[in-house]
Protein backbone atom coordinates (compact mmCIF):
# COMPACT_ATOMS: atom_id res chain seq x y z
CA UNK A 1 0.00 0.00 0.00
CA UNK A 2 1.34 3.41 -0.99
CA UNK A 3 0.85 6.76 0.71
CA UNK A 4 1.64 10.23 -0.62
CA UNK A 5 3.20 12.27 2.17
CA UNK A 6 6.06 14.03 0.42
CA UNK A 7 6.44 14.86 -3.28
CA UNK A 8 9.66 12.85 -3.29
CA UNK A 9 7.83 9.70 -2.13
CA UNK A 10 7.27 9.02 -5.83
CA UNK A 11 10.15 8.57 -8.26
CA UNK A 12 10.28 10.79 -11.34
CA UNK A 13 8.94 7.86 -13.39
CA UNK A 14 6.06 7.32 -10.95
CA UNK A 15 5.24 11.03 -10.92
CA UNK A 16 5.28 11.05 -14.71
CA UNK A 17 2.74 8.22 -14.69
CA UNK A 18 0.47 10.19 -12.37
CA UNK A 19 0.82 13.29 -14.55
CA UNK A 20 0.15 11.22 -17.70
CA UNK A 21 -3.03 9.93 -16.08
CA UNK A 22 -4.04 13.46 -15.02
CA UNK A 23 -3.65 14.54 -18.64
CA UNK A 24 -5.77 11.61 -19.84
CA UNK A 25 -8.45 12.63 -17.37
CA UNK A 26 -8.25 16.27 -18.49
CA UNK A 27 -8.68 15.23 -22.11
CA UNK A 28 -11.69 12.99 -21.48
CA UNK A 29 -13.17 13.31 -17.96
CA UNK A 30 -16.29 11.34 -18.88
CA UNK A 31 -14.22 8.20 -19.33
CA UNK A 32 -13.34 8.29 -15.64
CA UNK A 33 -16.69 9.23 -14.09
CA UNK A 34 -17.40 5.78 -12.66
CA UNK A 35 -13.88 4.66 -11.88
CA UNK A 36 -14.33 5.11 -8.12
CA UNK A 37 -17.96 4.06 -7.91
CA UNK A 38 -18.53 2.54 -4.48
CA UNK A 39 -15.31 4.05 -3.10
CA UNK A 40 -15.13 6.69 -0.38
CA UNK A 41 -12.56 9.31 0.46
CA UNK A 42 -12.31 10.62 4.03
CA UNK A 43 -11.21 14.26 4.13
CA UNK A 44 -9.81 14.77 7.62
CA UNK A 45 -9.20 18.50 7.83
CA UNK A 46 -8.06 19.60 11.28
CA UNK A 47 -7.74 23.17 10.07
CA UNK A 48 -9.69 25.24 7.55
CA UNK A 49 -9.00 25.01 3.85
CA UNK A 50 -11.03 26.01 0.84
CA UNK A 51 -9.29 24.92 -2.32
CA UNK A 52 -7.52 21.83 -1.08
CA UNK A 53 -10.50 20.21 0.66
CA UNK A 54 -12.98 21.08 -2.07
CA UNK A 55 -10.62 19.95 -4.81
CA UNK A 56 -10.18 16.58 -3.10
CA UNK A 57 -13.93 16.27 -2.77
CA UNK A 58 -14.51 17.39 -6.36
CA UNK A 59 -11.87 14.90 -7.51
CA UNK A 60 -13.56 11.96 -5.78
CA UNK A 61 -17.05 13.02 -6.90
CA UNK A 62 -15.78 13.38 -10.49
CA UNK A 63 -14.55 9.79 -10.26
CA UNK A 64 -17.98 8.58 -9.14
CA UNK A 65 -17.00 8.06 -5.51
CA UNK A 66 -18.33 9.53 -2.29
CA UNK A 67 -16.93 11.82 0.36
CA UNK A 68 -17.06 11.87 4.14
CA UNK A 69 -15.05 13.74 6.71
CA UNK A 70 -14.78 16.89 8.78
CA UNK A 71 -13.55 20.37 8.01
CA UNK A 72 -12.22 21.51 11.38
CA UNK A 73 -10.78 19.93 14.49
CA UNK A 74 -13.70 21.36 16.49
CA UNK A 75 -16.14 19.14 14.65
CA UNK A 76 -14.12 15.96 15.16
CA UNK A 77 -13.17 13.82 18.12
CA UNK A 78 -9.87 15.69 18.22
CA UNK A 79 -11.83 18.23 20.29
CA UNK A 80 -12.25 15.43 22.89
CA UNK A 81 -8.57 14.68 22.77
CA UNK A 82 -8.51 11.75 20.35
CA UNK A 83 -5.10 11.17 18.80
CA UNK A 84 -4.44 11.17 15.06
CA UNK A 85 -3.32 7.54 15.41
CA UNK A 86 -6.69 6.49 16.86
CA UNK A 87 -8.74 8.59 14.44
CA UNK A 88 -7.11 7.03 11.38
CA UNK A 89 -7.61 3.52 12.78
CA UNK A 90 -11.34 4.25 13.00
CA UNK A 91 -11.53 5.97 9.61
CA UNK A 92 -9.70 3.05 7.99
CA UNK A 93 -12.86 1.05 8.51
CA UNK A 94 -15.11 3.72 7.05
CA UNK A 95 -13.33 4.83 3.87
CA UNK A 96 -11.03 3.54 1.13
CA UNK A 97 -8.56 6.43 1.12
CA UNK A 98 -7.92 9.45 3.36
CA UNK A 99 -6.66 12.97 2.79
CA UNK A 100 -5.44 14.63 5.97
CA UNK A 101 -4.61 18.25 6.72
CA UNK A 102 -3.26 19.02 10.17
CA UNK A 103 -1.57 22.03 11.74
CA UNK A 104 1.08 19.82 13.33
CA UNK A 105 3.98 18.77 11.13
CA UNK A 106 4.25 15.03 10.61
CA UNK A 107 0.61 14.24 11.48
CA UNK A 108 0.03 12.58 8.07
CA UNK A 109 3.06 10.34 8.66
CA UNK A 110 1.60 9.26 12.01
CA UNK A 111 -1.67 8.53 10.24
CA UNK A 112 0.10 6.54 7.51
CA UNK A 113 1.96 4.46 10.10
CA UNK A 114 -1.32 3.35 11.68
CA UNK A 115 -3.59 3.30 8.63
CA UNK A 116 -4.96 0.36 6.68
CA UNK A 117 -5.89 2.64 3.75
CA UNK A 118 -3.74 4.97 1.61
CA UNK A 119 -3.11 8.35 3.22
CA UNK A 120 -2.55 11.58 1.34
CA UNK A 121 -0.88 14.54 3.02
CA UNK A 122 -3.13 17.52 2.29
CA UNK A 123 -0.79 19.89 4.15
CA UNK A 124 0.90 19.61 7.53
CA UNK A 125 1.79 22.95 9.09
CA UNK A 126 4.74 24.58 7.38
CA UNK A 127 6.19 21.21 6.42
CA UNK A 128 4.82 19.64 3.23
CA UNK A 129 1.96 20.16 0.82
CA UNK A 130 2.69 17.51 -1.83
CA UNK A 131 -0.58 17.71 -3.75
CA UNK A 132 0.11 21.42 -4.33
CA UNK A 133 3.46 20.38 -5.79
CA UNK A 134 1.74 17.75 -7.93
CA UNK A 135 -0.66 20.45 -9.12
CA UNK A 136 2.23 22.81 -9.88
CA UNK A 137 4.08 20.14 -11.86
CA UNK A 138 0.95 19.24 -13.80
CA UNK A 139 0.27 22.89 -14.60
CA UNK A 140 3.81 23.49 -15.83
CA UNK A 141 3.93 20.30 -17.86
CA UNK A 142 0.53 20.92 -19.43
CA UNK A 143 1.08 24.55 -20.31
CA UNK A 144 4.78 24.41 -21.14
CA UNK A 145 4.84 20.90 -22.55
CA UNK A 146 7.83 19.89 -20.43
CA UNK A 147 9.33 19.84 -16.94
CA UNK A 148 12.91 20.24 -18.12
CA UNK A 149 14.94 23.13 -19.59
CA UNK A 150 13.10 25.84 -17.69
CA UNK A 151 14.11 28.99 -15.83
CA UNK A 152 11.84 29.28 -12.83
CA UNK A 153 11.56 32.44 -10.77
CA UNK A 154 10.30 31.98 -7.22
CA UNK A 155 9.25 35.27 -5.72
CA UNK A 156 8.23 36.40 -2.25
CA UNK A 157 8.64 34.66 1.09
CA UNK A 158 11.05 31.86 0.20
CA UNK A 159 12.02 31.16 3.80
CA UNK A 160 8.71 30.01 5.23
CA UNK A 161 6.87 29.05 2.03
CA UNK A 162 6.44 25.28 2.04
CA UNK A 163 5.13 25.17 -1.54
CA UNK A 164 8.31 26.83 -2.74
CA UNK A 165 10.57 24.37 -0.93
CA UNK A 166 8.65 21.37 -2.25
CA UNK A 167 8.71 22.75 -5.78
CA UNK A 168 12.49 23.26 -5.65
CA UNK A 169 13.05 19.66 -4.55
CA UNK A 170 10.58 18.29 -7.10
CA UNK A 171 11.87 20.28 -10.08
CA UNK A 172 15.53 19.73 -9.21
CA UNK A 173 15.06 16.11 -10.32
CA UNK A 174 14.59 17.22 -13.95
CA UNK A 175 17.32 18.31 -16.36
CA UNK A 176 18.10 21.84 -17.49
CA UNK A 177 16.34 23.50 -14.55
CA UNK A 178 17.59 26.90 -13.39
CA UNK A 179 16.14 28.86 -10.48
CA UNK A 180 16.00 32.59 -9.88
CA UNK A 181 15.17 33.19 -6.22
CA UNK A 182 13.63 36.61 -5.69
CA UNK A 183 13.20 37.71 -2.08
CA UNK A 184 14.43 40.11 0.57
CA UNK A 185 17.68 38.92 2.11
CA UNK A 186 15.93 37.88 5.34
CA UNK A 187 13.43 35.71 3.49
CA UNK A 188 15.80 33.72 1.30
CA UNK A 189 15.44 29.95 1.08
CA UNK A 190 16.71 28.17 4.23
CA UNK A 191 20.23 26.77 4.15
CA UNK A 192 18.94 23.20 4.18
CA UNK A 193 16.90 23.77 1.01
CA UNK A 194 19.76 25.63 -0.68
CA UNK A 195 22.21 22.87 0.18
CA UNK A 196 20.09 19.75 -0.37
CA UNK A 197 17.80 21.01 -3.12
CA UNK A 198 20.27 23.05 -5.15
CA UNK A 199 23.97 22.96 -4.32
CA UNK A 200 24.46 19.20 -3.87
CA UNK A 201 22.62 18.61 -7.14
CA UNK A 202 24.56 21.31 -9.00
CA UNK A 203 21.36 23.12 -9.94
CA UNK A 204 22.19 26.63 -11.23
CA UNK A 205 20.49 29.39 -9.25
CA UNK A 206 20.87 33.01 -8.31
CA UNK A 207 19.38 35.06 -5.50
CA UNK A 208 18.17 38.59 -6.20
CA UNK A 209 16.06 41.18 -4.40
CA UNK A 210 14.16 42.91 -7.19
CA UNK A 211 11.65 41.18 -9.44
CA UNK A 212 11.96 43.86 -12.15
CA UNK A 213 15.62 43.00 -12.69
CA UNK A 214 15.00 39.37 -13.67
CA UNK A 215 11.39 38.96 -14.78
CA UNK A 216 12.43 39.12 -18.45
CA UNK A 217 14.52 35.95 -18.23
CA UNK A 218 11.85 33.69 -16.68
CA UNK A 219 9.81 30.88 -18.24
CA UNK A 220 7.76 30.58 -15.04
CA UNK A 221 7.16 33.20 -12.37
CA UNK A 222 5.88 31.54 -9.20
CA UNK A 223 4.54 34.22 -6.87
CA UNK A 224 3.97 33.81 -3.13
CA UNK A 225 2.61 36.13 -0.51
CA UNK A 226 5.02 38.16 1.53
CA UNK A 227 3.79 39.47 4.84
CA UNK A 228 4.83 42.81 6.26
CA UNK A 229 5.55 41.26 9.65
CA UNK A 230 8.20 39.03 8.08
CA UNK A 231 10.47 42.04 7.53
CA UNK A 232 12.86 42.85 10.32
CA UNK A 233 12.69 46.60 9.88
CA UNK A 234 10.30 49.14 8.45
CA UNK A 235 12.87 50.76 6.13
CA UNK A 236 13.60 47.47 4.44
CA UNK A 237 9.89 46.85 4.01
CA UNK A 238 9.29 50.27 2.44
CA UNK A 239 12.30 49.87 0.15
CA UNK A 240 11.27 46.50 -1.21
CA UNK A 241 7.53 46.02 -0.82
CA UNK A 242 6.58 47.27 -4.28
CA UNK A 243 9.03 44.89 -5.91
CA UNK A 244 6.96 41.93 -4.76
CA UNK A 245 3.66 43.18 -6.12
CA UNK A 246 3.14 42.00 -9.66
CA UNK A 247 1.22 44.51 -11.77
CA UNK A 248 0.63 45.26 -15.44
CA UNK A 249 3.74 47.45 -15.60
CA UNK A 250 6.01 44.61 -14.50
CA UNK A 251 4.23 42.18 -16.80
CA UNK A 252 5.40 44.36 -19.71
CA UNK A 253 8.94 43.31 -18.80
CA UNK A 254 8.06 39.59 -18.83
CA UNK A 255 8.50 37.42 -21.89
CA UNK A 256 5.51 36.56 -24.10
CA UNK A 257 5.51 32.93 -22.89
CA UNK A 258 6.25 33.53 -19.22
CA UNK A 259 3.59 31.86 -17.07
CA UNK A 260 2.56 33.44 -13.78
CA UNK A 261 1.63 30.89 -11.12
CA UNK A 262 0.53 31.23 -7.50
CA UNK A 263 -0.57 28.57 -4.97
CA UNK A 264 -3.38 30.93 -3.81
CA UNK A 265 -4.92 32.49 -1.81
CA UNK A 266 -3.65 35.72 -3.32
CA UNK A 267 -3.90 38.84 -1.17
CA UNK A 268 -2.34 41.83 -2.90
CA UNK A 269 0.89 40.42 -4.33
CA UNK A 270 -0.69 40.12 -7.77
CA UNK A 271 -2.76 43.12 -8.83
CA UNK A 272 -6.16 42.10 -10.14
CA UNK A 273 -5.34 43.90 -13.41
CA UNK A 274 -2.98 40.98 -14.16
CA UNK A 275 -5.81 38.43 -13.97
CA UNK A 276 -6.88 38.99 -17.57
CA UNK A 277 -3.35 38.63 -18.93
CA UNK A 278 -3.21 35.29 -20.78
CA UNK A 279 0.11 34.58 -19.09
CA UNK A 280 -1.61 34.61 -15.66
CA UNK A 281 -2.50 30.95 -15.09
CA UNK A 282 -3.08 30.76 -11.33
CA UNK A 283 -6.83 30.14 -11.59
CA UNK A 284 -6.23 27.50 -14.26
CA UNK A 285 -3.59 26.05 -11.92
CA UNK A 286 -6.23 25.67 -9.18
CA UNK A 287 -8.52 23.88 -11.63
CA UNK A 288 -5.72 21.58 -12.76
CA UNK A 289 -5.36 20.58 -9.11
CA UNK A 290 -8.57 18.57 -9.41
CA UNK A 291 -7.20 16.49 -12.30
CA UNK A 292 -3.93 15.95 -10.45
CA UNK A 293 -5.79 14.76 -7.34
CA UNK A 294 -8.08 12.52 -9.40
CA UNK A 295 -5.00 10.87 -10.89
CA UNK A 296 -3.41 10.54 -7.46
CA UNK A 297 -6.51 8.95 -5.90
CA UNK A 298 -6.73 6.45 -8.76
CA UNK A 299 -3.03 5.64 -8.52
CA UNK A 300 -3.11 5.04 -4.76
CA UNK A 301 -6.24 2.91 -5.10
CA UNK A 302 -4.64 0.95 -7.92
CA UNK A 303 -7.37 1.83 -10.39
CA UNK A 304 -7.12 2.37 -14.12
CA UNK A 305 -9.41 4.36 -16.38
CA UNK A 306 -10.82 1.46 -18.29
CA UNK A 307 -12.08 -0.52 -15.34
CA UNK A 308 -14.59 0.27 -12.64
CA UNK A 309 -14.03 -0.15 -8.95
CA UNK A 310 -16.83 -2.60 -8.40
Amino acid at each position, binding site marked *: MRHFLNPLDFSVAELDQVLDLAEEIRQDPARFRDVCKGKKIATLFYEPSTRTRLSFEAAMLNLGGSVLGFSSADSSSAAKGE*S*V*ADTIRIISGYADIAAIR*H*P*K*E*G*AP*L*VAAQKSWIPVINAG*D*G*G*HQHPTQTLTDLFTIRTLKGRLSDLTIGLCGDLKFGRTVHSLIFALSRYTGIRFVLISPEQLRVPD*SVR*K*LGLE*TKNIPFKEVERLEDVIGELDILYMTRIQKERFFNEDEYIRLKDSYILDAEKMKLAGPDCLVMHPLPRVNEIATEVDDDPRAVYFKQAHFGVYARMALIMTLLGLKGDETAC
Partner: protein
Amino acid sequence: MLNVGALENGVVLDHIQAGRAMSIYHDLGLHKLDSCVAIIKNARSNKMGRKDIIKIEGGLDLVDLDVLGFIDHNITVNIIKDGVIVEKRDLTLPKRLTNIIKCKNPRCITSIEQELDHVFEHSEAEGEVYRCIYCGETSPYKYRR
Protein backbone atom coordinates in the same frame (compact mmCIF):
# COMPACT_ATOMS: atom_id res chain seq x y z
CA MET B 1 50.29 9.47 38.05
CA LEU B 2 47.17 7.83 39.42
CA ASN B 3 46.76 4.12 38.77
CA VAL B 4 43.34 2.57 38.35
CA GLY B 5 43.18 -1.20 38.54
CA ALA B 6 43.09 -3.16 35.29
CA LEU B 7 39.74 -4.45 34.07
CA GLU B 8 39.43 -8.22 33.89
CA ASN B 9 36.26 -8.46 31.79
CA GLY B 10 34.39 -5.48 30.48
CA VAL B 11 34.40 -2.45 28.20
CA VAL B 12 36.70 0.56 28.11
CA LEU B 13 35.48 3.75 26.49
CA ASP B 14 38.66 5.56 25.56
CA HIS B 15 39.48 8.89 23.94
CA ILE B 16 36.53 10.70 25.46
CA GLN B 17 36.93 14.44 25.14
CA ALA B 18 38.27 15.74 28.47
CA GLY B 19 35.53 16.86 30.84
CA ARG B 20 32.71 14.91 29.18
CA ALA B 21 32.91 11.56 30.96
CA MET B 22 30.33 12.43 33.60
CA SER B 23 27.70 13.55 31.10
CA ILE B 24 28.33 10.45 28.97
CA TYR B 25 28.08 8.34 32.14
CA HIS B 26 24.57 9.67 32.66
CA ASP B 27 23.55 9.71 28.99
CA LEU B 28 24.43 6.02 28.67
CA GLY B 29 22.48 5.26 31.85
CA LEU B 30 25.58 3.83 33.52
CA HIS B 31 24.45 5.25 36.86
CA LYS B 32 21.68 2.65 36.82
CA LEU B 33 24.07 -0.31 36.57
CA ASP B 34 24.94 -2.57 39.48
CA SER B 35 28.34 -3.35 38.00
CA CYS B 36 31.58 -1.57 38.80
CA VAL B 37 32.22 1.58 36.73
CA ALA B 38 35.38 3.70 36.88
CA ILE B 39 35.58 7.21 35.52
CA ILE B 40 39.01 8.63 34.84
CA LYS B 41 39.14 12.32 34.11
CA ASN B 42 41.92 14.35 32.51
CA ALA B 43 44.18 11.41 31.74
CA ARG B 44 47.28 12.26 29.71
CA SER B 45 46.97 11.45 26.02
CA ASN B 46 49.50 11.72 23.20
CA LYS B 47 46.67 12.12 20.71
CA MET B 48 44.40 14.48 22.61
CA GLY B 49 46.55 16.09 25.30
CA ARG B 50 43.91 15.31 27.94
CA LYS B 51 41.16 12.76 27.72
CA ASP B 52 38.55 11.01 29.83
CA ILE B 53 38.13 7.24 30.09
CA ILE B 54 35.24 5.11 31.38
CA LYS B 55 35.79 1.49 32.42
CA ILE B 56 32.75 -0.73 32.82
CA GLU B 57 32.79 -4.20 34.29
CA GLY B 58 30.56 -6.58 32.31
CA GLY B 59 29.49 -7.24 28.73
CA LEU B 60 29.12 -4.93 25.75
CA ASP B 61 25.34 -5.17 26.10
CA LEU B 62 25.62 -2.67 28.94
CA VAL B 63 26.55 0.09 26.46
CA ASP B 64 24.19 1.45 23.82
CA LEU B 65 26.59 1.93 20.92
CA ASP B 66 24.00 3.91 18.94
CA VAL B 67 23.78 6.48 21.70
CA LEU B 68 27.54 6.53 22.02
CA GLY B 69 28.00 6.89 18.26
CA PHE B 70 25.63 9.83 18.25
CA ILE B 71 27.31 11.47 21.24
CA ASP B 72 30.80 11.15 19.79
CA HIS B 73 31.80 8.61 17.16
CA ASN B 74 35.49 9.34 17.81
CA ILE B 75 35.36 7.51 21.13
CA THR B 76 37.21 4.18 21.06
CA VAL B 77 35.44 1.12 22.44
CA ASN B 78 37.78 -1.62 23.72
CA ILE B 79 36.38 -4.97 24.76
CA ILE B 80 38.41 -6.66 27.48
CA LYS B 81 38.45 -10.38 28.21
CA ASP B 82 40.72 -11.96 30.78
CA GLY B 83 42.58 -8.69 31.16
CA VAL B 84 43.45 -8.20 27.46
CA ILE B 85 41.87 -6.21 24.64
CA VAL B 86 40.17 -8.76 22.40
CA GLU B 87 38.31 -6.35 20.17
CA LYS B 88 38.24 -2.67 19.25
CA ARG B 89 34.86 -1.54 18.10
CA ASP B 90 34.59 1.47 15.75
CA LEU B 91 31.65 3.73 16.32
CA THR B 92 29.64 5.05 13.44
CA LEU B 93 26.85 7.57 13.27
CA PRO B 94 23.69 5.51 13.77
CA LYS B 95 21.13 5.63 10.97
CA ARG B 96 18.18 6.07 13.33
CA LEU B 97 17.77 7.24 16.90
CA THR B 98 14.62 6.34 18.80
CA ASN B 99 13.78 8.21 22.01
CA ILE B 100 17.38 9.32 22.48
CA ILE B 101 16.76 12.95 21.64
CA LYS B 102 13.49 14.84 21.79
CA CYS B 103 12.13 16.96 18.98
CA LYS B 104 11.96 20.56 20.19
CA ASN B 105 9.80 21.86 17.34
CA PRO B 106 6.54 23.05 18.91
CA ARG B 107 4.81 22.55 15.57
CA CYS B 108 5.79 18.86 15.42
CA ILE B 109 3.13 16.20 15.93
CA THR B 110 5.32 14.68 18.65
CA SER B 111 4.48 17.73 20.77
CA ILE B 112 0.84 16.62 21.13
CA GLU B 113 0.69 12.85 20.49
CA GLN B 114 1.98 11.61 23.81
CA GLU B 115 2.56 7.98 22.86
CA LEU B 116 4.73 8.74 19.83
CA ASP B 117 8.37 7.74 19.79
CA HIS B 118 10.74 10.60 19.03
CA VAL B 119 12.64 9.30 16.00
CA PHE B 120 15.52 11.04 14.23
CA GLU B 121 17.28 9.81 11.10
CA HIS B 122 20.76 10.64 9.91
CA SER B 123 20.70 13.01 6.93
CA GLU B 124 23.81 11.75 5.16
CA ALA B 125 23.91 14.56 2.62
CA GLU B 126 24.22 17.07 5.47
CA GLY B 127 27.14 15.46 7.31
CA GLU B 128 26.39 14.89 10.99
CA VAL B 129 22.86 16.27 10.87
CA TYR B 130 19.89 14.29 12.25
CA ARG B 131 16.34 15.18 11.33
CA CYS B 132 13.03 14.34 13.00
CA ILE B 133 11.20 11.90 10.75
CA TYR B 134 7.92 13.72 11.40
CA CYS B 135 8.69 17.41 10.94
CA GLY B 136 12.21 17.46 9.47
CA GLU B 137 13.59 19.58 12.33
CA THR B 138 17.31 19.12 12.96
CA SER B 139 18.38 17.58 16.24
CA PRO B 140 19.67 19.71 19.09
CA TYR B 141 23.43 19.25 19.30
CA LYS B 142 24.03 19.51 22.98
CA TYR B 143 26.27 16.44 22.91
CA ARG B 144 28.33 16.90 19.83
CA ARG B 145 31.79 18.36 19.60
